[in-house]
């Protein structure tokens, strides 16, 4: 039997069949089965709902589907009933029964169980996360029905590779991995190169502690990533892509593996994509717990099967990347933006956000905050709105001490700086970086020096050890901070810390070392008073330091 080869026109057919299939149902119950909700029993809930609609005899008008993250992780397990987007929070099997009977059978939404979503969703601009919580990540048809892969078809039929790059240039899209390098420029370097093969690496090595935006995106909408890779491959002339993901993300790995397999079955990946001359393969590569592997030259080493150690640049990966070949390394969120830009045009995209930083950015909002979760906001929104409107402020009416933005290499911003807007340049002027998109809020129960030490600790253990400033310098910073915390600090230490930090960030080889002292530099800049209190008065506002630790002896 010959396997049917899918061609371009089939995408349209699949979409139509799927839309018809879904239209037959009056309701759709979306059970959020993301990494946040599964530990709270989401998978059981899915089974409960499937059983319930059969029991209540509404299986013909109600569809139960598992989806990715809805975004309101604090209210998990979350269930969304469409149409209408009713978000139910903290759903238990008992509540599930009530929802099915009241909402599905009788048509009356259960108001007491609803999640207050007005502000949470109003301030957001969900583009990349448009499908998160709405489609089943295991079903490619669901993605196609929402207009998925139509951007790819558009590229293959109506756009030349150069036109694709031009469209991205007009959109002003910049890399979402942290540094904010213009995507179109990166692509055109590689597109101009006539050597082959060329490679693309999708960076899903989200090693920053406290950040889960990329992971959730890949778990919720894996095909957007694959489509982005395909379009990038078409534009630059690459035939092979690697998705480099953390081994600690079993759900993301499973979803991506199945998504790749399904795309291959539909001839979207492989030889002669959808009957055209484009050949494209995607391979999943697992990291193994190295934060430094997020750096672009380190990720190359890791994909090649070596230790993830960065090397000096130039040559940049665009000229000498994977196995010495031209390589584009792109963050997952950037890639997920690509299909949208192609579909709606670069001009449309460039109007979102600020003129210099277009588009939106996903953030994982965590820490001491009332409403943690996954959010997407337009660039240029003030940090205060994110924390106090979307995040609904600090629990127990405590005072915000700092917002940590950009992970361990970002900065600690105090309350007075919360009005600065979220874009690459503004954050850089205040000493933080965008990073891969994590905001962790700390309240007055945390000691700022202890927090700085936590980050330095992380960077010390993750430093690859190749260059001396990072390997030795960070360790020295850690020692000084420990001394201050134990109450043995000297007055000169403040100046020494600031000198050492500046030295490390100026002389380190890669991004890890260059940004690792940021937490120390920003805390010295904005919380100098606390350092001095520790040094002069042996006083810690959070009452955390100067405690002698009990030493454990096993016997």
């Amino acid at each position, binding site marked *: 039997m010959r396997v049917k080869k899918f061609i371009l026109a089939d995408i349209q057919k699949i979409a139509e069949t799927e839309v018809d299939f879904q239209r037959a149902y009056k309701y759709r119950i979306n059970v959020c089965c993301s*990494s*946040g909700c*599964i*530990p*709270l029993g989401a998978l059981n809930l899915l089974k409960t709902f499937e059983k319930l609609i059969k029991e209540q005899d509404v299986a013909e008008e109600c569809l139960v589907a598992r989806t990715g993250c809805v975004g309101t*992780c*604090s209210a*998990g397990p979350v269930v969304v009933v469409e149409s209408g987007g009713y978000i139910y929070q903290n759903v238990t099997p008992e509540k599930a029964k009530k929802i099915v009977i009241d909402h599905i059978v009788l048509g009356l939404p259960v108001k007491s169980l609803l999640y207050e979503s007005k502000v949470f969703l109003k301030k957001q601009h969900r583009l990349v996360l448009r499908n998160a919580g709405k489609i089943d990540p295991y079903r490619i048809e669901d993605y196609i029905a929402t207009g998925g892969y139509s951007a790819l078809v558009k590229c293959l039929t109506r756009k030349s590779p150069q036109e694709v790059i031009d469209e991205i240039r007009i959109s002003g899209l910049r890399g979402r991995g942290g540094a904010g390098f213009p995507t179109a420029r990166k692509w055109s370097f590689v597109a101009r190169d006539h050597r082959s093969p060329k490679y693309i690496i999708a960076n899903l090595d*989200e*090693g*920053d*502690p*406290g*950040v*889960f935006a990329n*992971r*959730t995106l890949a778990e919720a909408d894996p095909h957007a990533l694959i489509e982005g890779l395909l379009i990038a491959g078409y534009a630059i002339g690459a035939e092979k892509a690697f998705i480099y993901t953390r*081994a*600690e*993300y079993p759900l993301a790995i499973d979803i991506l593996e199945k998504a790749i397999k399904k795309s291959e079955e539909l001839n979207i990946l492989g030889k002669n994509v959808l009957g055209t001359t484009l050949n494209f393969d995607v391979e999943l*590569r*697992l*990291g*193994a*717990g*190295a*934060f430094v592997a997020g750096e672009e030259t380190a990720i190359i080493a*890791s*994909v090649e*099967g*070596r*230790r*993830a150690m960065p090397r000096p640049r130039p040559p940049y990966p665009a000229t000498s990347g994977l196995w010495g070949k031209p390589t584009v390394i792109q963050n997952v969120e950037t890639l997920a933006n690509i299909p949208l830009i192609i579909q709606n045009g670069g001009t449309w995209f460039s109007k979102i956000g600020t003129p210099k930083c277009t588009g939106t950015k996903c953030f*994982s909002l*965590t*820490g*001491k905050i009332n409403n*943690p*979760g*996954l959010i997407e906001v337009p660039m240029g929104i003030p940090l205060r709105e994110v924390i106090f409107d979307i995040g609904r402020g600090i629990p127990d009416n405590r005072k915000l001490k700092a917002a*940590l933005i950009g992970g*361990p290499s970002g900065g600690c911003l105090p309350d007075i700086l919360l009005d600065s807007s979220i874009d690459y340049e503004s954050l850089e002027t205040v000493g933080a970086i965008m990073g891969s998109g*994590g905001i*962790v*809020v*700390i309240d007055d129960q*945390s000691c700022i020096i202890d*927090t700085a030490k*936590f*980050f330095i600790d*992380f960077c010390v253990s*993750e430093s*690859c050890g190749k260059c001396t400033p990072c390997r030795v310098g960070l360790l020295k910073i850690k020692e000084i901070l420990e001394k201050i915390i134990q109450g043995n600090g000297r007055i000169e230490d403040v100046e020494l810390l600031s000198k050492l930090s500046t030295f490390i960030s100026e002389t380190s080889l890669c991004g890890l070392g260059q940004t690792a002292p940021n937490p120390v530099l920003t805390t010295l800049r904005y919380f100098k008073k606390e350092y001095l209190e520790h040094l002069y008065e042996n006083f810690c506002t959070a009452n955390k330091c100067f405690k*002698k630790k*009990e*030493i*454990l*002896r*096993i*016997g």
Partner: protein
Amino acid sequence: MIKLTFKKKSESFLSSQSMVYAPLKKPKVLISMGLKNDKRLLKLERFLKKMEYKGSALLEILHKTQEIYGYLNEDVLKYVSEAIELPLSHVYGVATFYSYFKLKQSGEHVITACMGTACYVKGVEKIISAIEKRFCVKRGGSTADGKLSLFITRCIGACAIGPTILIDDNVVGNATKDIVLERIASTLESEKIYTCRYSKNS
């Protein structure tokens, strides 16, 4: 050192899938490497073949090896290095560089505490030290009887429900000291009381 010859891309072994205990190598060679010719080795060999004995797939191979053997011992690393024709120093270097690879056998039950920023801010440190005290285990180590290991990981990505603790593969979200200690105790299913001696500053 005994030189093994691996025929690449040939059908030398595993030609018949029906043989479960296919004679992979001469038993003597394997014994000298400290490995048994068993199902686990067969699985590993099958995977190596799938990866075409490529050195670039080293990380995948180590992942699979750890999945099969539970940890990476020296003998199996030697075997892998011979198979993919890379120096043992390289293979060992990669295995030690990445924190995901374990070179020591872990306990029967594994507790993994998430030490991401969000969990740290929410006080996971207290829970970890409570586990250390109650079960007499140090972070990164195992109990004396090998029943329990305690590891620290850098973020499992479930930050919104932090602090999170993994007991074997089950995630405990919004964890508190009492819940975690109780859950671990019930996992261990034994009434054994771990006794530790404490002393200050020694």
